[in-house]
């Protein structure tokens, strides 16, 4: 297919762009296969480059022959384009609609994008399971790397290499896989170096209504317990939801069959509910005419903040079991690809200082989200402005980032990255020139040949020039476990994402610059003092004790 077929009017002059809190721009609108571009052809004025993939929905209006297109983006921005000429406007609108909803992945921009920078470090090699396993091996010999899923037949959403208890053979793994939803048998998610406790994740067991059991599954998870120790199973669903799942062949671990485990149910919402929550929240944030009462009631009704609180509470619980109770934990919900990953990845941020560095956080996303089979492409197909009936869209990853932001805000000195890093990840998960978030699993990504045909987000982010924007000037590495407060008053609306386009960020940006300035000035002074101290020490050794007048 040629993109040209979809573009009836590639260029319109005299288009006026309106954006809230920014001056209007008049210029020429151009459509390309992947971008909507508005250029005023003047120096010093900003141009608009918008990926079609970033467009969530559009609306058109006409007053006489002046057409207006309201473009609503997945990054939540809303812009207005005034286009002279009804035909031009209709053509542009239909092109945008077609180009922003391309079905085929291989037509997406990452397959066409050629980087203007030299790839120094290939982001596709950021996380190598074999190397991660070497680290684990240096701490414990209880685990092995299994190739049971090398052709993705045991579990299509898992990667080919999985870390499992040493004493469990591949045959048992296959049997356990047949007892878990989608074949997602329990695998290692995190090893807590401090006390040797582990966190595993899986999908729900397929007990069904007649209480099926699977000896291999029981053996598998028991193999992770120390002698005489109990573990916790954290089911991210309420008891009622877990009970209902039985009717559809799912279920939860029966006490009788897992006597060494205590099961705790939490109430993390399922992904389809989350999409509704996002839509309501963004609707509330975009209406500036709301009275205080209406705003607060809409914020409450969206349930977004409740979701943040519930996810963080569950992650804290998992971390608490591991660090405070000295117990191992198994986390699962239904499919084990959404709420499970939110909980396991957040628990690691709480427990493991390495995850709070830029590199460590990238690895966490590779390991616990991309390789663990979170279906990014399905979940991020649409954002808050989708009109159609939601299929499998859900802001699962955005909620995770929101939770990370909450912790970051409570521990502003404990993270190497800043808020902009999280916002950038949100943007790229929904629309990007990079291939990282394409596909729904490792298997799909291999089939798409992403690592050969597209550039990894990490290849770009990890260049020193880019990285600078994402560094937190207040960062002081600390090796502590950080316990966030989950009290409602401690959890704020993530303004950086949800109010980003509804206010001017000038003053807040200035504050950040000032912060960087203070820290940099301090470093500069430190360097000068250190170099002087060295010179002084040198002089003293050369000349003997210095004589001061």
């Amino acid at each position, binding site marked *: 297919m040629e993109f040209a077929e979809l573009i009836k009017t590639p260029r319109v002059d005299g288009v006026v762009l309106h954006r809230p809190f920014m001056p209007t721009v008049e210029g020429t609108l151009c459509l390309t296969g992947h971008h909507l571009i508005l250029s005023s052809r003047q120096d010093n004025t900003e141009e608009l480059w918008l990926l079609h993939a970033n467009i969530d929905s559009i609306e058109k209006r006409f007053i006489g022959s002046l057409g207006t297109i309201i473009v609503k983006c997945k990054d939540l921005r809303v812009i207005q384009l005034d286009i002279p000429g009804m035909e031009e406007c209709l053509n542009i609108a239909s092109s945008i609609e077609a180009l922003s909803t391309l079905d085929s992945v291989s037509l997406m921009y990452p397959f066409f994008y050629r980087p203007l920078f030299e790839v120094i470090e290939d982001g596709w090699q950021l996380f190598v399971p074999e190397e991660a396993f070497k680290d684990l091996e240096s701490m414990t010999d209880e685990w092995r790397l299994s190739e049971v899923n090398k052709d993705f037949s045991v579990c299509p959403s898992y990667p080919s290499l999985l870390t499992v208890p040493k004493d469990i053979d591949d045959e048992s793994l296959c049997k356990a896989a047949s007892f878990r939803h989608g074949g997602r048998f329990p695998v290692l998610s995190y090893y807590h170096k401090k006390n040797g406790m582990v966190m595993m994740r899986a999908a729900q067991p397929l007990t069904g209504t007649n209480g099926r059991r699977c000896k291999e599954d029981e053996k598998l998870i028991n193999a992770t317990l120390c002698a005489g120790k109990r573990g916790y199973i954290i089911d991210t669903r309420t008891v009622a939801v877990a009970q209902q799942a039985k009717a559809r062949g799912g279920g939860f671990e029966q006490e009788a069959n897992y006597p060494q485990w205590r099961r705790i149910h939490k109430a993390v919402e399922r992904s389809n509910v989350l999409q509704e929550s996002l839509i309501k929240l963004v609707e*509330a944030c975009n209406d*500036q005419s*709301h*009275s*205080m*009462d*209406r*705003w*607060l*009631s809409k*914020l*409450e009704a969206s*349930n977004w*903040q*409740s979701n*943040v*609180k519930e996810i963080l509470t569950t992650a804290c619980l998992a971390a608490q079991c591991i660090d405070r109770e000295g117990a191992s934990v198994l986390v699962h919900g239904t499919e084990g690809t959404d709420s499970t990953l939110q909980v396991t990845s957040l628990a690691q941020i709480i427990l493991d200082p390495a995850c709070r560095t830029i590199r460590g956080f990238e690895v966490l996303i590779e390991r616990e989200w991309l390789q663990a089979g979170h279906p990014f492409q399905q979940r991020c197909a649409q954002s808050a402005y989708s009109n159609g009936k939601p299929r499998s869209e859900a802001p699962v990853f955005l909620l995770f980032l929101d939770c990370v932001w909450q912790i970051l805000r*409570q*521990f*502003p*000195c*404990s993270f190497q990255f800043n808020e902009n890093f999280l916002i950038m990840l949100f943007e790229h998960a929904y629309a990007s020139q990079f291939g990282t978030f394409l596909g729904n699993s490792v298997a799909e990504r291999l089939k798409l040949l992403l690592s050969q045909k597209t550039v990894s987000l990490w290849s770009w982010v990890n260049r020193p020039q880019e990285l600078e924007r994402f560094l937190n000037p*207040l960062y*002081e590495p600390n090796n502590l476990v*950080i316990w966030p*407060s989950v*009290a*409602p*008053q*401690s*959890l*704020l*609306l993530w303004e950086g994402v949800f*109010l980003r386009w*509804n*206010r*001017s960020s000038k*003053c*807040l940006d*200035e*504050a950040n610059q*000032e*912060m960087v300035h*203070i*820290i940099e*000035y*301090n470093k*500069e*002074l*430190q360097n*000068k*003092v250190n*170099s*002087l101290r060295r*010179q*002084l020490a040198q*002089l003293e050794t050369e000349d003997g004790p*210095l004589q*001061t*007048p």
Partner: protein
Amino acid sequence: MEHIRTPKVENVHMIDRLTPRKSTVGTLYLSSTHTIFVENSEARKETWVLHSLVYNVERLPTNPSGSPLLIRCKNFHVYRLLIPQEKDCLDVLASLTRLSRPECYGELFCFSFNPNLDKELREKAWGFIDLKAEFSRMGIPSNLWHVTAANHEYRLCETYPSELFVPKSAFPAVIVGSAKFRSRGRLPVLSYFHRDTSASICRSSQPLSGFSARSTDDEQMLHAIMKSNPVSELMYVVDTRPKLNAMANRATGKGYENEDHYTNIKLQFVGIENIHVMRSSQQKLVDVGELPAPSMSDFLWGLENSGWLKHIKAVLDAGVFIAKAVAEDGVSVLVHCSDGWDRTAQACSLASVLLDPYYRTIKGLMVLIEKDWVSFGHKFSHRYAHLDGDPKEVSPVMDQFLECVWQLMQQFPCAFEFNERFLIQLHTHIYSCQYGNFIGNCQKERRDLRLQERTHSLWPHLWENRAEYTNPLYRTDHSQTQGVLKPLTTAYCFKFWKGMYGHADKSVASHQSPADCLNAVREESQQLEEELIAHQEVPRETDAGQETCPTEGEENFRGEEEDQQAV
């Protein structure tokens, strides 16, 4: 001491509601001014609670482990004690109840508080804020404004300061006539003069207009105010009440200006609710903070139901309206409510904060509070329940002003010299009665109490500790620092003030504060600067001296500023 039934109770538990494992055991002492809890732990950590800060004391039903006692403070801290013997608990309850409700001014802490300052220093301390100097900073007196002796010995208006600034063109008879036509004699006088536009903010109480009354003196007074701004032919009268309330007042012979009787005035209602609505709103907000394990919905619903942020928005909107009129339209504004000492003080002082960068400095905010609140007769002792009195007089008027400033700080992080801690400290002392500044309800009452001889002033104390109250992001040459602030007042811009209201539970307190980190870094920078200078002074043969000291004006300025603070 006669009110203390038991001076000491042992084995008392201080309960942390959210994290019971953080609860501690210790000894409780009652002194004539404080409740003191000393932990049995090795650190022997002490918690001091001033009696005058206690809002109420509540005893919960005795249970097998003892008698629980809840001490709620006016700064929203809550202490949960568990006293082993019921009898001790009853004694502590009775003692604290009496001690926290002084019956006369003489009982207040400020009269016994003695920070070891000699008489001369104390007198000097009371001169720390000079309102005459403040008006002269604004350019007053000028050829259009002057000071009038009309209120000498408070004979015109008991609750106003003795020195008032009025238009030169207003004759004494007009001044007296206008005072007679205003509730409690609180005539229109100058609060703030904006040099850039010559527009002014004046304040008063409501006119005694009823349904038809008028006063040519009052009309002339307003005309004189309008004429004192030579470039404008118009003047706004901002009635800070909801229109309905203002209309209801007409039935009692009060009300608002009839636009037909006054030349070129434009009347504007801004709808700030009265003190009773605000009192109950804040109570609801505080109750939300005390909910046991609230869900997000409980919290947000409670926040909405309290109406608190709605009221905060109304107060800030009033300030924004006035500031815009003065700075953008160059039009003078007369602000009033009913008596002109609550909502009027809020609106005038907030407009001043928005208009004038000086009021966004540590010293400037002190001056502003002294001017718009203390001197103009905001009824501190009534509003903040310094004495056991009419509970209907109590209302968080100043709390709202401080919170509006805090909300502004969230939008303009570099615009204020002071930090959140400064606002919270001010709030505490407005209630604490430790210093004499906020005792009484007007200047005359404070003079009669001879407060300057008998008590100490808060301002120099805060000034000496200003390093603690400094916002590290503030810079005098910053774009946010200069000029008029134009905040966004969309509903979503207002936040729950956790630093103020989030104290019901200790464990909710924030973990790390960016401002504290930055202050520590700046302090270190200062030490490094000193070391660099010291190194430079050591004579050396090498030429390394060239790179020792930063010479950029900006950096040096910052260093000097900190030097001053360290004194």
